[in-house]
């Protein structure tokens, strides 16, 4: 379900052993989206955090172990993906958006 695609930003400089990282890339028709937002929703679907996507469609969150949903909003489209995060093992996911 998750961690299949290595698309997120480099974890260089991050203490990955200590942090619970959820990161990845947002794509539309297979191509990275250059403008938009990634939102992190908790197990109950409540908003926890939001970051703008990088010019190459990437995002990163520091969370806690558990089940989360990454929801992507881009002009004219949205999409989401459920991920399971663990401390010490960054989740690297891909979220596809469609109109």
């Amino acid at each position, binding site marked *: 379900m998750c961690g299949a695609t290595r698309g997120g930003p480099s974890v260089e400089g991050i203490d990955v052993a200590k942090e619970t990282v959820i990161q990845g890339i947002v794509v539309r028709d297979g191509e990275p989206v250059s*403008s938009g937002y990634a*939102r992190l929703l908790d197990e109950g679907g*409540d908003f926890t955090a939001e970051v703008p996507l990088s010019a190459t469609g990437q995002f990163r969150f520091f969370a806690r172990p558990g089940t989360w949903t990454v929801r992507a909003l*881009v002009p004219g489209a949205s999409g989401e993906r459920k991920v399971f995060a663990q401390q010490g093992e960054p989740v690297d996911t891909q979220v596809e958006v469609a109109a």
Partner: protein
Amino acid sequence: MSREKALVDASWVEANSGDPKVVLVEVDEDVSAYDKGHIPGAVRLDWKSELQDPVIRDFVNKEQFEKLLSSKGIANDDTVVLYGGNNNWFAAYAYWYFSLYGHADVRLLDGGRKKWELDGRELTADVPTRAATTYTASEPRTDIRAFREEVIAAIGDKALVDVRSPDEFSGRLLAPAHLPQEQSQRAGHIPTAKNIPWAKTAREDGTFRSNDELTALYGEAGVDLSRDIIAYCRIGERSAHTWFALHELLDLPNVKNYDGSWTEYGSLVGVPIEKGA
């Protein structure tokens, strides 16, 4: 203040785009967002390098604020429209500063940068030039800012609103989930505080919920809106957003922002802390 006065929408901004007395100001958590594109005519404020004192933990003083606004070309009688990413998180923080230093006409663009961008409206990389002004700030207001002694005394007395995420409130995280986990010495929340995460006041597109929805949100969480209210978060910016919702949109007079927030309170020696939901 009222909702009609404090909030403007995109069509208002477009209709007033040629007015030199209307100044758009972008304030982002990610200060590089402005370089990638901003609303035509907007100037940038850097919440960290320009709104914080470089040495002590405090925000800029009256003279620094005057110098800053003068250099940005903002005059006392200008209408300042603030906007930014992440539901106007840092733009609301700047709004609180402008209010604190007595700017007469300051507003937020509802939905901020996100809605503007998602709606496919124009962004530009052109940086406008505005002639410097001689800005005069008022003495900082104390009726909208809470300090630690007042917060400690408020336990069990005033309504404390903790606007952080449930994980930060319960003590499982020390910082918002998109930032590295660091800062205060202890995790948890101020006893008697109710947890209403700041972003619950906004819809997915970043616009504020209606006044009826806002009243219901705080009522259901057990906050008595007729009492004095102090809002706090980690460093005082998310709670400035909640302050805006309560003080400006719902027009409640007795609302303060505790900008010392959890990074101060959670590092104080000997103060009571509660953990858990």
